[in-house]
């Protein structure tokens, strides 16, 4: 029964192929990037280890998305988790990496436990681990059990995906890994959890009731907002990006959840469309998040710091990195005509079209979700104005930033490659949507040949004929034309630009230096105030006075309370530790006592046996 044909345990279908493509798209530049990134940072032995880890990581991810047997799936899933754990603690000499690794491995194992639970429930009905057999058996499963399995799957994969409130490990683990690994973890690894949800919840289990989609939508909306708000408050560039992963997983799940809801509302065309939006954002996020992490890695390599308050002025010394980061920022902030815009726009469209053809309650729900998505996009843009502006513009804020040098060719190459992909996926959206339609039609086993999903002539349902038009090439053309005309007009009116150098007006202070520049903390203050009900900011001030009128020094600190950590995780951890401390008394080190435990257990069993 437990004999497996290894080759037959892995197979390809459209969904697997799509994920393989995503993995390959991000892994290739990351691998090229790592050749220079690892050099100089690490010893030769460590570099070899890094390569082995990277290959094993990529390989395990590829196996995860191609397994067609739940048993093999669990094994390769666990392999992926373990390999990524070792990559998180790659800088094992840093205390922080080891701590991040512990948080990561604990959370990921909790997730795996839930996944195993779900698979065992399904196995009980199928008596086989094969996906096809599981699918058949799940059709006959009682609805209660189906709901239970879905919740187990959601928690299990949600932990890996980093949905709120299971995201706690993400901002620790992703930044601590070497940057090319961060780009893979954030860009690809958390997407395997989305794969898991699509594969197990939608394709194998089959959507049971409409609330499944609603639950995913609510969680996704919360993840979007929480992720982006935390990202706004964050000044560690890699942590900031990690929080944006939480946000973007939310956006992807908005698409996936909407499609699950539409299936139950009996709107197959919209279901396919929403899934296309979700998958499109998935590949887009893989590309631009990979790009942004690589840029962050370049900045880290050049300065040795991750705190953006220490950067500044890097655009002059690192123009390539700055350009790539700018493109990535524009994409993640959903600015047209780049790829992030297309997928977020599609998701919004899915909500709007859903509102047109669904009952009132769902209309309102969709409206709120669309509003949240729009708000998220705006906040993300604000966040990246901060990240780009503070990092690359103005004057260097520390000597690390002043001494920064542009990174070597292979790192530049990887960044430029991904930047080009960002643009290509924006401009070539109509082709990609066609491809993704095939994937998402396969997910729902719907024949999509009749559906016409070209963007220029986007006819969704007959009754909404001629509803939506979007063409990113035309937008791009319009943008460039508009900018060109403006510049030309300015040139004609004002004549040739003259270069003048002068002091910034400083209210007569005459001593402006980089310390007087706008900081990231200051930039994010309005948001800190706007969301203070959630962030619970507090500050500490410390004045040293010589007299009442003369303050010699003034110290000002501001912090935000991490709500999830304090109100959810810490009580749980405390409870576990308290139990463990209580149990520790059982273990005083006496060998006699230990043997006595065995003795007492045997006696108890004998006496207990006598009762029957």
């Amino acid at each position, binding site marked *: 029964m437990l004999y497996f044909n290894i080759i037959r345990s892995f197979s390809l279908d459209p969904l697997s192929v799509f994920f393989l493509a995503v993995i390959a798209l991000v892994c290739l530049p990351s691998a090229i990037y790592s050749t220079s990134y690892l050099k100089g940072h690490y010893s030769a032995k460590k570099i070899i280890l890094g390569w082995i880890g990277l290959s094993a990581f990529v390989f395990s991810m590829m196996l995860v998305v191609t397994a067609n047997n739940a048993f093999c799936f669990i094994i390769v899933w666990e392999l992926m988790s373990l390999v990524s754990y070792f990559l998180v603690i790659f800088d094992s000499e840093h205390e922080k990496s080891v701590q991040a690794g512990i948080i990561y491995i604990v959370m990921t194992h909790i997730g795996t436990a839930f996944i195993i639970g779900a698979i065992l429930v399904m196995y009980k009905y199928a008596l086989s681990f094969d996906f096809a057999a599981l699918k058949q058996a799940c059709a006959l499963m009682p609805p209660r059990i189906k709901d239970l399995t879905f919740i187990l799957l959601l928690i299990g994969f949600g932990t890996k995906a980093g949905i709120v409130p299971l995201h706690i490990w993400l901002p620790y683990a992703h930044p601590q890994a070497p940057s090319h690994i961060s780009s893979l973890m954030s860009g690809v690894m958390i997407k395997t959890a989305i794969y898991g949800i699509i594969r197990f919840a939608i394709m194998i289990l089959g959507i049971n009731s409409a609330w499944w989609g609603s639950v995913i939508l609510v969680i996704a909306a919360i993840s979007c907002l929480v992720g982006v708000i935390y990202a706004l408050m964050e000044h560690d560039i890699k942590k900031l990006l990690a929080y944006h992963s939480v946000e973007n997983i939310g956006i992807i799940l908005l698409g996936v959840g909407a499609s699950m809801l539409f299936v139950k509302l009996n709107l197959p065309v919209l279901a396919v469309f929403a899934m296309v939006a979700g998958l499109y954002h998935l590949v887009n996020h893989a590309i631009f998040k990979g790009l942004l992490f690589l840029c962050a890695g370049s900045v880290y390599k050049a300065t040795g710091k991750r705190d953006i308050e220490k950067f500044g002025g890097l655009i002059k010394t690192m123009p390539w990195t700055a350009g790539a980061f700018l493109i990535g920022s524009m994409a993640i902030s959903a600015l047209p005509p780049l790829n992030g815009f297309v997928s977020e726009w599609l998701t919004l469209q899915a909500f709007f079209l859903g509102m047109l053809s669904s009952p009132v309650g769902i209309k309102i729900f969709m409206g709120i979700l669309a509003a949240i998505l729009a708000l998220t996009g705006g906040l993300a843009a604000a966040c990246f104005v901060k990240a780009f502006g503070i990092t690359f513009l103005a004057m260097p804020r520390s000597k690390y930033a002043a001494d920064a040098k542009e990174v070597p060719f292979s790192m530049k190459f990887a960044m430029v490659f991904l930047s080009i992909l960002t643009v290509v996926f924006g401009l070539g959206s109509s082709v990609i949507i066609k491809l993704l339609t095939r994937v998402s039609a396969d997910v729902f086993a719907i024949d999509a040949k009749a559906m016409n999903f070209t963007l220029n002539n986007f006819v969704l349902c007959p009754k909404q004929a001629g509803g939506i038009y979007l063409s990113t090439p035309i937008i791009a053309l319009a943008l460039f034309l508009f900018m060109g005309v403006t510049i030309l007009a300015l040139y004609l009116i004002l004549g040739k630009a003259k270069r003048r150098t002068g002091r910034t007006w400083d209210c007569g202070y005459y001593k402006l230096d980089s310390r007087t520049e706008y900081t990231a903390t200051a930039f994010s203050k309005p948001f800190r105030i706007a969301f203070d009900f959630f962030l619970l900011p507090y500050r500490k001030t410390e004045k040293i006075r010589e007299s009442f009128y003369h303050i010699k020094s003034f110290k000002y600190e501001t912090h935000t309370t991490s709500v999830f950590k304090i109100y959810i995780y810490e009580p749980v951890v405390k409870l576990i530790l308290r139990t463990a401390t209580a149990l520790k008394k059982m273990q005083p080190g006496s060998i006699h006592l230990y043997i006595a435990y065995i003795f007492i257990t045997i006696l108890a069993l004998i006496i207990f*046996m006598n009762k029957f």
Partner: protein
Amino acid sequence: MSMGIFLSAVLLMAFSMVTSKRLNALIRAFSAQSFFLFLITVFFAVREKSLELCVVAVLLFAIKVITIPHLLFRIVKKIKTDEGAGLIVNPTLSLFIAMFLAYLAYLFTGRLLPLQDRMQEAAFVIALAVTLIGLFLMVFRMKAIAQIIGLLVMENGLFLIASAVSGGMPFFVEIAIFFDIFVCVIILGMFVYKINKVFTHIDVNKLRELRG
């Protein structure tokens, strides 16, 4: 009839181990118990006319009756520890507890396996009692050598259970167990020797460093 005598002797030797205060007495009692076990095995071998059981019996005699006690005596002599086995409960109380354990074994056997043959039932009861007494020795004696003997006594009990219920384990398993026990005693002996060298005592009660 002789079978009954041997079985009683095995139990009696277990009781004598529980009451013995000195290590040498403990080892001698173990040796005697193993000897009676050997006689039981020979009895079985003759009754069943099995060559394999004969080999097992010979091995039992060579290892448990002669070699292991000899090794243990040597360790006791070498480490020059004081003779006492380090009793946590005194001999009288120990004897009462041992008797209680035997009674418990009897109760348990009655409920667990309704064995037809009275002799088989007695063998099972005694085997279980001996196993429990071995465990008791491990818990309530301080010296590390007493722990080794406790383990060996438990093994004797298990051997007897196997013979009583199914006429012995498969031949190769039996041989492997003998080999295991032998190696185990050698390793444990070396450990005791080392412990004595490092800590200048073999008092398990005082080895409390390893804890959570």
